[in-house]
């Protein structure tokens, strides 16, 4: 009796899930597997991967406004998880979406494998004027365009006003002041001043660039040759600086983007958070800035090495690219150009601080410029911090093996955190490691 009942249940479940599964045999580029609901029937569908927190709304807006194409969206994970999936699909020759959200620093990595489509011929001229020159530069390799810019990541220093007030410090303008302030808070028995996370190597790369490092020089006209310079004095100084802060116990060494870190931020365990313009939106999504810590955050410009010659840098910032596996590249390009380019989506993005837009119509919108950001207790963060930072950002040349470089950096930084090597040694090892990899991959390393 009992067994028969179990068997019946099992059979039912099997039949049920079998039916569900049958409809989805087609794979990742099959339009039947969308997270969003497509209401318009008999319209060509373009598949897309992306992880903006408000992607659902962005896609719905696009689909509402278009009758000739509909977007089918899937979130296959953020950053590294998505790149692994995409990389796997490239190797398999199948399974990639038509359009993919990528950070600008990954574009050369995928481009060199021939995985992305040059979209210059598919309507670049019509939207060219919507973005600044720097924005286009970040998504181009040589004179070919491999992505449509969506958001940038001008960096600033997010800090806790309550902690700064309590210990009577003002936002540091230089990194030397940052260390002094950190020491002051520590001496007074206060919380950690910041955090050195091994899992956010891109931040350290940005901070090295701020000091004058230029990790990679790569000219796509000469694809076989690459400049790798990861252990120059500037790179060493920055790693030594942060390694020193960690050793002195001034900053934490917690991985960022983890629940542990988030709860630390909520509970005021860190006085500052060196991050980009999109961070407040992500923090809000995780519950920061609500409840007990409402209105406790503010933002100041990134501290400088030489206040007389300030340098602004970028973390993150992403684009929509068209993949080689897109069956109709022109249609896919239309989606890439049109997604997150309408006013409603952009406005939602920047009001919630999820993106720092690169679209000039948004950047010049007085409502954006003067926005009083709720997360920062009404501070006009764009005008005061992020817009000047974005304007001064010069662009960077990225490596065509970004994944390896960032993994290697994480490895060395975690050694620094462990205290087994100094920042300088880490830079030397990183140089050796990455240059060796580049050679193995057939590059001539300069």
């Amino acid at each position, binding site marked *: 009796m009992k067994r028969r009942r179990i068997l019946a249940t099992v059979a039912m479940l099997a039949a049920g899930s079998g039916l569900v599964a049958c409809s989805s045999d087609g794979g990742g580029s099959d339009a039947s597997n969308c997270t969003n609901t497509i209401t318009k029937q008999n319209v060509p569908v373009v598949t897309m991967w992306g992880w903006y927190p408000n992607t659902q709304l962005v896609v719905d807006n696009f689909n509402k406004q278009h009758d000739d194409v509909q977007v089918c969206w899937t979130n296959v994970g953020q950053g*590294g998880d998505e*790149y*692994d999936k995409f*990389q*796997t699909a*490239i*190797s398999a020759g199948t399974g990639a979406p038509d359009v993919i959200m990528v950070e600008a620093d990954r574009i050369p990595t995928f481009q*060199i*494998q021939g995985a992305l489509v040059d979209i210059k011929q598919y309507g670049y001229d019509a939207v060219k004027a919507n973005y600044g020159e720097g924005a286009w530069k970040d998504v181009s390799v040589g004179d070919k365009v491999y992505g449509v810019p969506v958001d940038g990541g001008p960096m600033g220093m997010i800090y806790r006003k309550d902690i700064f007030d309590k210990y009577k410090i003002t936002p540091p303008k230089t990194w030397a002041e940052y260390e002094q302030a950190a020491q002051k808070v520590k001496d007074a028995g206060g919380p950690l001043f910041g955090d050195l*996370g*091994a*899992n956010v190597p891109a931040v350290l790369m940005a901070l090295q660039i701020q000091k004058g490092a230029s990790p990679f020089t790569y000219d796509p006209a000469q*694809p*076989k040759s690459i400049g790798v310079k990861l252990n120059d004095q500037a790179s060493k100084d920055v790693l030594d600086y942060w390694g020193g802060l960690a050793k002195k116990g001034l900053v934490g*060494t917690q*991985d960022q983007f*983890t*629940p*542990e870190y988030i*709860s*630390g931020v909520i*509970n005021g365990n860190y006085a500052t958070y060196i991050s980009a313009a999109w961070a407040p939106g992500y923090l809000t999504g995780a519950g920061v800035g609500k409840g007990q810590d409402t209105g406790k955050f503010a933002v100041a410009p990134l501290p400088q090495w030489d206040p007389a010659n300030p340098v602004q840098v970028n973390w993150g910032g992403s684009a929509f690219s068209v993949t080689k596996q897109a069956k109709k590249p022109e249609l896919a390009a239309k989606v890439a150009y049109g997604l997150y380019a309408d006013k409603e989506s952009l406005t939602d993005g920047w009001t919630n601080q999820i993106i720092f837009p690169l679209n000039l119509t948004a950047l010049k919108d007085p409502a954006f410029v003067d926005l009083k950001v709720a997360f920062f207790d009404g501070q006009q963060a764009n005008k005061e911090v992020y817009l000047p930072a974005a304007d001064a950002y010069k662009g960077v040349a990225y490596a*065509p*093996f970004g*994944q*390896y470089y960032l*993994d290697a950096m*994480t*490895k060395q*930084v*975690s050694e620094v*955190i*462990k205290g087994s090597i100094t920042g300088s040694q880490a830079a030397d090892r990183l140089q050796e490691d990455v240059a060796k990899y580049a050679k*193995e*991959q*057939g*590059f001539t390393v300069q």
Partner: protein
Amino acid sequence: MTLLTEKRAPRTQHEKRKIRGKVHLREHLMGWLFVGPFGVVFLAFLIAPLGYALYLSLFQKKLIGGTSFVLFDNYVKAFTDPSFLSGVWFVLRFSLVSIPLQILIALALALILDAVTTLFARFSRLMIFLPYAIPTVIGAVMWGFLYSKGFGPLTDIFGLFGATAPDFLSSDLIFYGLLNVVTWQWAGYYMIILYAALQGVDPTLYEAARMDGAGRWQIATRIKIPLIAPALILILVFSLIGTLQFFNEPQILRYLAAGTIGTDFTPNMYAYQQAFSLANFNYGSAISFALGGIVFICVYAFLFFTRKRRSFL
């Protein structure tokens, strides 16, 4: 392959008849008919992939310059690659500590449960076995939360004694952090196997021993443990194979501690990174293959030293 040959069962009457008679063809056919479907799967999903992996591992693919045949270069590289070697060193060390620990706990529990027969003991048996029903991935997720200083219970528990909670995800303690996850996950399963083996022992043996004046401890160590030695060897071998292939738990905990658990933390993770993150299937295959070789050597060495190879496989 001699270690693998199965223990020779005494020929039965049926077999003797077969040998004398001339029904060989039919017997061959029927045998292959029964074994055939599995054989097909075996060839398709074990032999073919293995052969293919071996083939792939003989090539090298570069971003610039494409693919070329390099014979054993990838293996030479692997055995001089600090990432691979440190991963192997880790899983070896981890095996040496975690396997004896798990088995000791499992054995102790099995002996206790064999001796204690209260309702509570029966309840305990199920509860201790419970973690085996948890996917390793979910187990790792759960322990990842528990290790959190911010909202895990460790802070509360250690706080009771006025101590600071250790951070099991830091690079100093990750070994123990993983050790705990693995023990929690598997000790109950091994316990059940050993317990089942103990239940199969003829109780009159204990009676005889007791007549001879053996105490409970002597019965356990002199009679029970030797009698379930085959089961012990079996789970030792399986945990050895599993531990050398360590992947799921550290891969999941990487989300919480990417700095501590690098992409080359274990050989399998390194192979995964090479293949799926860096698109280097050739080197990834070589690493997998090299790991397979190491597993084989370790298991062989283990069976050799326990001199039990004939009674197990």
